[in-house]
């Protein structure tokens, strides 16, 4: 692809179903990806990769009962597989808001809400993903299980462990304050 023959780097029109889907849902997908990853750059990349897959399988996605739920499933599974692959490929620098609690507590105006966000970043990816789907996207444990491709028991186990960790660390943070 030469520079002079540069192809349009986007979908051509606003009137095809895929474009309409992207326009309608991209922002909410980025927000979900941000809550799951805790990193704005990673969230953008994750959504781009998700939309790429969505485009490839658009026939299947568009035929689903809920295309948005289907794409959310792609996003979540892409994230979890990314987390594995990233270990040997790249490491994304955490944003300041994702620093470990010890640093975050040095912020004079840190609130419980900020601390909870910082502590979320310390959870293993599956636990964080479960909590994000449960408390940000308000999914039931059964829907989360379908989205992640695991059993509902696994979802509850991950949620329980994640919450227990957060509760303990929040308490430690308060005790150290």
């Amino acid at each position, binding site marked *: 692809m*030469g*520079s*002079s*023959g*540069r*192809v*349009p*780097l*986007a*979908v*051509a*029109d*606003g009137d095809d179903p895929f474009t309409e889907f*992207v*326009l309608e849902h*991209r922002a909410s997908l*980025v*927000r*979900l990806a*941000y*809550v799951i990853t805790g990193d*704005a*750059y990673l969230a*953008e*990349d994750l959504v*781009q*990769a998700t939309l*790429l897959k969505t*485009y*490839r399988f658009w026939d299947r996605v568009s035929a689903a009962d809920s295309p948005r739920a289907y794409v959310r499933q792609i996003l979540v599974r892409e994230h979890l597989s990314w*987390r*594995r692959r990233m*270990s*040997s*490929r*790249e*490491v994304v*620098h955490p*944003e300041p*808001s994702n620093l470990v609690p010890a640093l975050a507590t040095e912020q004079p105006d840190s609130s*419980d*809400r*900020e601390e*909870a*966000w910082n502590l*979320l970043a*310390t*959870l*293993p*990816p*599956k636990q964080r993903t479960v*909590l*994000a789907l449960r*408390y*940000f996207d308000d999914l039931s444990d059964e829907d989360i299980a379908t989205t992640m491709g695991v059993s509902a028991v*696994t979802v509850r186990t991950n949620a329980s462990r994640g*919450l227990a960790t*957060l*509760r303990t660390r*929040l308490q430690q943070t308060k005790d150290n304050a």
Partner: protein
Amino acid sequence: MNEDRELEDLLRASMKHHAEEMPEIGSVRTRRRRTPVLVAAAASVVVVAAGAVALTSLAPIFSTGSGTSGSASTHLDLGGPRPLFGLDFSAGDGSSAAPTSAAAAKGLAGFVNLSRPMPTELDSFCSSDAPQHVEITASDVSAIYICHEGSLTQEDGSIWATAVVDQIVGGIDEFLAATALADEQESKSCFLTFNPPAIIAVHTADAVMNIDPPRDWCRSPLPAWTAAFENLIVQKVREIPIEMTQSSLVTETGCPDKFKDMLILERPSKAKGSPEPLPESPMTMCVYQTDHVGEGTLIAGLRLTAKNVAIINESYQTIVLSDPECDPTVHDHFVVLSEGNNWVQIALNGCGILDRTGMRLGSSDLGAYLNWLIQNSGQGKALLNR
């Protein structure tokens, strides 16, 4: 129960607040004035054209190695003028052959924007102001510099991200003419985020100004500008190491510097029997220290002989599955043995073994043997000290 409810409410509030306040990508360094959509330093681009789909990423790959941002002071004067596309030939001889369309296409993508604050030593070359799309005549220009990120291998084998300053020494007239072209009208259906992968600073008699290219309907630089950019002749005038991206240990061992601790993250499968035997030929063994939340950091690496691997295969037979004492999260170190498509991840002082047939929990004398190998390789001291 109330505590649970409070925590859940706190999480809901925290997630919704942060999702609404999500930082705008690219707001640190590369803000455009003319369009409300900010460009991304780590932008990925979905390319959809005539049925062809590809994902390209301009994201730099970095490790979390200890940074020394702005502190290093090695200044290098490197080589003579060369065509800009030559920068892409990282393994080549920097030859100045005439550009071809394929080489030119790599010219723009061959640049990576600085992902960290620019060292203050480079302030005199490139400004930290937002880029502007402006018309400048060549007669007003005293110099044009391109500031971007590079990569430099040190004598010890470590690889550093560098801040690089190139001075444009040829093709300026055509480049400024292309820069002065008008933007196309932007389409609402475009969701592309594109970032010029370098700061381009124009110096005039009384100002330094970062310039932004003219954009097409989907925020990409106009092809005419891209062509002019790729025909520039540049000379590197400064390169400053800013952060180690790959340790010498990674270079020496060939092991990734980070590896997911899948023994913690992976759900134990229903795999039965012993793990798949490894091919009895030399393998690399990378040793990692886990952070207990799913990430390992490389601390040693060694080459195993075929005999070592044969003993490991024998040790597989000693694994006692369904050990009630086994907790996959209890280990400080793990190793990854790999060669070609064959790999296995083993807890050194724990009981998890993961290979492509699944994850097994069981006690064995395998960890003791691997520990012995590490001690004998002379790297055991480093392991024990961590």
